[in-house]
């Protein structure tokens, strides 16, 4: 299957043609945001000065970062974290800041799916735990905010990435691979439970 390249910032048009099951690679800039940043932004907190998320990509990730003697940060592990924890906040953040893609793992719920459709955004699933393969795609740490307040995993890191691989599992047409698999596995579960072992 062909892999579709995505370059940030993303246009609405580009995002709306993506479909569940598409493999993509992202090149450009992504911003990490986990629970604390989501809660902060959803509660009306301001983005750090100079940060514009329009056409942007948020990555649910708490990286392992080490600071070299020269003061430069290096990302040594950067896989996705469970996205569902951001379900209460994500839709609002997509709307308010004009996000075009959210990267994470495990998928998200109905509120986010609706926001993807309404505002033209996609949910991209990275391979959970593949911290090294994904850290390889981080070519530079461009900035970091909220480091002291929120701690390293919860801070907002601005990462330059090249050919960062992911799969579209929720698209802007209202489809969710997570819902499809859930439904088919539910049928199988009913079968397994009715039959004797």
């Amino acid at each position, binding site marked *: *299957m062909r892999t579709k390249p995505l370059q940030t910032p993303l246009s609405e048009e580009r995002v709306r043609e993506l479909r569940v*099951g598409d*493999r993509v690679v992202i090149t450009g800039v992504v911003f990490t945001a986990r629970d*604390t940043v989501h809660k902060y932004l959803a509660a009306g907190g301001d983005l750090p000065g100079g940060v514009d998320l329009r056409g942007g990509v948020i990555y649910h*990730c*708490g*990286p*392992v*970062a*080490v600071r070299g003697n020269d003061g430069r940060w290096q990302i*040594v*592990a*950067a*896989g996705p*974290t*469970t996205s*569902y924890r951001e379900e209460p906040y994500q839709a609002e953040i997509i709307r308010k800041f004009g996000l075009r893609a959210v990267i994470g*793992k*495990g*998928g998200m719920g109905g509120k986010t799916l609706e926001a993807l459709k309404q505002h033209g955004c996609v949910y991209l*699933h990275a*391979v*959970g*735990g*593949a*911290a*090294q*393969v994904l*850290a*390889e795609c981080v070519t530079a740490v461009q900035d970091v905010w909220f480091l002291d307040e*929120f*701690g*390293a*995993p*919860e801070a907002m890191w601005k990462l330059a990435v090249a050919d960062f*691989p992911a*799969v579209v*599992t929720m698209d802007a047409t209202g489809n969710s*691979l*997570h819902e*499809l*698999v*859930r439904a*088919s*596995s*539910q049928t*199988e*579960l009913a079968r*397994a*439970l009715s039959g*004797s*072992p």
Partner: protein
Amino acid sequence: MRNALLLARDCEANDSLAASVLETIHRNIDLACSRTRPICQDTGSVLFYVTAPSSFDRTAFKKLAGRCVTAATAKGWLRPNSVDPITGRNDGTNVGPGTPTFYFEDGPDPAITIKLMLKGGGCENVGAQYSLPDARLGADRNLDGCRKAVLDAVFQAQGKGCAPGVLGICIGGDRATGYEHSKIQFLRRLDDTKPDPTLRAFEEDILRSANALGIGPMGFGGKTTLLAAKACTLNRLPASYFVTVSYMCWAFRRQGVVLDQSGHITQWLYS
């Protein structure tokens, strides 16, 4: 674990999302090994399981282990993962109330066994405890009821525990020992089998039935949802019947050593 993942990759359809996930996982493990870096950025809860004679100085061990954990964190081998639940403060040392976690057991001979497990938060969150009977599942207080509860846990988890994973199951016990012993199952080797034929059949059935659900790696659909299921039993109170399921993601990190009296390593477990 690595071999199990490779076998799984060969079972999935060519060019499927499932196969490409397993391929990425495989590449990831290679990269982590060659660079001495964490295979997953969530280095999880740090759990020590120590079996030692009663003369073993537990307090000194805890202090020393805490210092090692802090040092490993400074090197970027562990992520600062110890957070005060009220203030949200994370002091970056990975040492605090309850972290790291220690389980001590008295051992008969002079040898000391120390096992270390790192258990990620994503898979910890999909663990579940059922109190039988469970009307929703139609699960009674028998092995078939346990089966229903365990399969429900796998279904509820979908790909969220970073499937493909390993299940640790404890039938019986109380709320605390249920989780403790379901996790202890992760100290068993993947290829070990229970001597008790009933439990062995139960483990095999869970593995087969869970994989028939079609959840697959990362929940993208596929044949490999679980790589193994490990179960144990504890006696229960007449009033309670708990089934406890712990989920371990594919980033299954553990190591163990046997030390002699002078503290030298005489054996590596799980190599």
